[in-house]
């Protein structure tokens, strides 16, 4: 009720309204605000570099760590900087199978990012569709959907993933499946909440009086306005998916050992820490930390920028 008495538009400087200059679109404004934070900018750059490095790993990596024929068990556990039997330098040392840690990290990032991003996207797709339908349909459909979401959310992600993986077995596809099943509910809840809030706004009512089709209202009006909260949740869930994959690999239900993800590298090298062979676990750990942190920092800034209260 107090809404009517706040007049935010009065804050606009007059020159905006006088006509000529092309105002930046909301997208441009977003990026301008985003880059205002040097930390977030740096994180974004780091993230881009990491993604590029992962994508082009076969070109960058001195070794294909997944190709058993180029690995030699005699090269196992070499410290950083030492030379392999074929004369290649182990920049960050080698692991128990004689795998170059640096190459393994690059390839591992691929797996980790693949798992994180695809489970994030799939989870988002599934959650968004279900959440939107719930919000728009209302009534019994909504009640049933939200009950399921509640149930899912009342159960910690890690347990769901753990049980699921011990059931379906190993593999990237399986782990993505497990993560999607464990995470879609977060998206569904968020998108429903956002959509409900948007739906109450009068522009949706206006679209309904204009008799636009349901699909159009949902996907062209409501969904784009839910994007801010989705982006935020998306980044956070991606980060947590990567972390979760690592954890699951650590618990032994993650990925096959010959194609290690970062989590598996860490977990494989974990015990060697005791004997001072820190590099096998530490470097992948740092790589994992950097990825998750960069995503979180980017997500954090996105949240700050998109939150109208946070804007100057």
């Amino acid at each position, binding site marked *: 009720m107090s809404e009517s008495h706040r007049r935010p538009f009065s804050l606009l400087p007059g020159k905006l309204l006088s006509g000529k200059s092309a105002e930046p679109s909301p997208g441009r404004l977003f990026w301008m605000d985003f880059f205002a934070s040097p930390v977030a900018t740096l994180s974004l750059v780091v993230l881009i570099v990491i993604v590029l490095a992962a994508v082009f790993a076969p070109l960058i990596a001195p070794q294909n760590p997944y190709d058993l024929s180029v690995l030699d068990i005699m090269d*196992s556990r070499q410290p950083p900087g030492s030379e392999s039997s074929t004369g290649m330098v182990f920049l960050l040392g080698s692991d128990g199978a004689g795998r170059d840690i640096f190459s393994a990290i690059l390839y591992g990032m691929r797996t980790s990012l693949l798992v994180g991003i695809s489970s994030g996207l799939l989870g988002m797709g599934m959650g968004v569709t279900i959440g939107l339908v719930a919000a728009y349909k209302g009534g019994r459909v909504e009640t049933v959907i939200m009950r399921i979401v509640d149930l899912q959310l009342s159960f910690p992600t890690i347990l769901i993933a753990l049980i699921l993986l011990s059931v379906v077995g190993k593999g990237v596809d399986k782990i993505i499946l497990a993560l999607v099943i464990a995470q879609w509910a977060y998206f569904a809840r968020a998108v429903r909440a956002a959509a409900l809030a948007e739906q109450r706004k009068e522009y949706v009512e206006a679209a309904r009086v204009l008799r636009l089709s349901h699909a159009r209202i949902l996907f062209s009006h409501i969904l784009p306005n839910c994007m801010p909260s989705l982006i935020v949740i998306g980044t956070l869930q991606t980060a947590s998916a990567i972390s979760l994959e690592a954890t699951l690999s650590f618990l032994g239900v993650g990925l096959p050992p010959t194609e290690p993800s970062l989590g598996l590298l860490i977990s494989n090298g974990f015990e060697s820490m005791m004997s001072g062979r820190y590099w096998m676990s530490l470097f992948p750990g740092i790589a994992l930390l950097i990825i998750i942190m960069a995503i979180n920092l980017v997500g954090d800034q996105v949240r700050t920028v998109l939150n109208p209260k946070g804007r100057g």
Partner: protein
Amino acid sequence: QAAEIEELRIGCFTEPPSLDPHWQNTAASNSLSQHIFDRLFHADENQKPVPALAEGWKVIDPLTWEIALRKDVKFHDGTPFTADDVLFTFERSQNVPNSPFSFKSYLGNKKLEKVDDHLIRITTPSPNPILINEIMTVSIISKRVGEKATTDDYNRGTAMVGTGPYRFVEWRSGQHIRLERNEGYWGKKPEWMQVTLRPISSNPARVAALLSGDVELIDFVPPSSLERLQSNKALSLSSKVSNRMIYLAFDHSRVRSPFVKGIDGSEIDNPLRKLEVRQAISKAINREAIGSRALEGMGVPAGQLVPPEIFGSAPELGPDKFSVADAKALLTKAGYPNGFAITLHSSNDRYVNDAAVAEAIAQMLTRIGIRTAVETMPYSVFVPRATGGGPEGLSQFSLFLYGFGGQTGEASVALRSVVATYDKAKGLGSSNRGRYSNPEVDKLISQASQELDDTKRAALMAEATRISMADVAVAPIYFPVNYWSTKKGMTYRARTDERTLAMDTLGGQG
């Protein structure tokens, strides 16, 4: 002088799931039960039977044995030990409610009679040379206590009444088991007044516990810490080759094997049925490297089913010579000059560094042209798939890494389980998942199982071993070496059967 030493704290890799001595027959269970319960015969560090509650045995005829019992033995509750307890034990150990395991496999075909209070007679339907080895698996419990006791009573401790060197004090699941010395023990009293067994399953944590002085002894020293412990002046290590053999199993039976493909991905006939291919695989494996690298020194190369010291082995049989050239030649001879593609399956949480070994083997096979992928999984998933889901089914794998270790301490079990032709009715070939079959081997095994003369029996078993190894029925890779580590000045008498016993821990000058 022994009484001066107060407490021994042991960091154990595994905790027995139940204190009931007949619940299962694993190293963890036996480690604990041996402190509290005696057996008729104890296994020495090489798993040779030595008289314990029994004074000795007499073979009356090939089907009848008589065993004399010690007369000076009292249970912890003061009641004397008699033949009734043995009879009761044999009965109960085969029928523990809810137990997944039953001692029937060791005792099922034996008839037990009480001759007098301290003499029992055992009759068997056919001659059984390993009778003593079989009965030494069972912990003798008190009839008086045991009659009313359930597994729960053992777990609570109320039924933990044996004749052993230690008495039970308390069990906190996941935390510790406390024991105190049985001052009325009939045999040699151990040095330690009190013993605490602490399960610390995390390897670094177990090592750290030793390093920080939280415990005096740890078992299953992890390979990653071996170097560090070896170089630590305040600690000492002891080791023993275990009775377990880790081997590669081949699919011998199927013409088309599920995980074999041509190098171009096409379907091909199962090359593992060809002797040369199996030989090539065996020769391609650098067992030394696996022992020193993948296992970080915790494995010795294996050339047969049991370590050469064990009764019934073929002492002269060494591991296959590693030679890439020979392996390639054999492969070419078998008709696979360009190799083929195969998937090697393995567990990843069962044997020390099992996944790493599988990976190393895959590397080595890939090097001779057999393009090998590795798939590892938890043991719980691995076993049913390797075994084929049911006793009748074939293995789902083509080539897989498995381990075998018998509890009776001689070669016959390995022969009967691993290389004897699969025969459910006779209980033969239960671990023969690749379905190797050679009538000659089967004949030798069956002869050996009836032969009471040790020398002849040993020769029969050795011959069976030789033939099956020449066939490369399986490719033995290594025998794991188990390490125990103690504080300096103490020594642990390392055992083949992987048990960790306070009685075998010597405080030295302490």
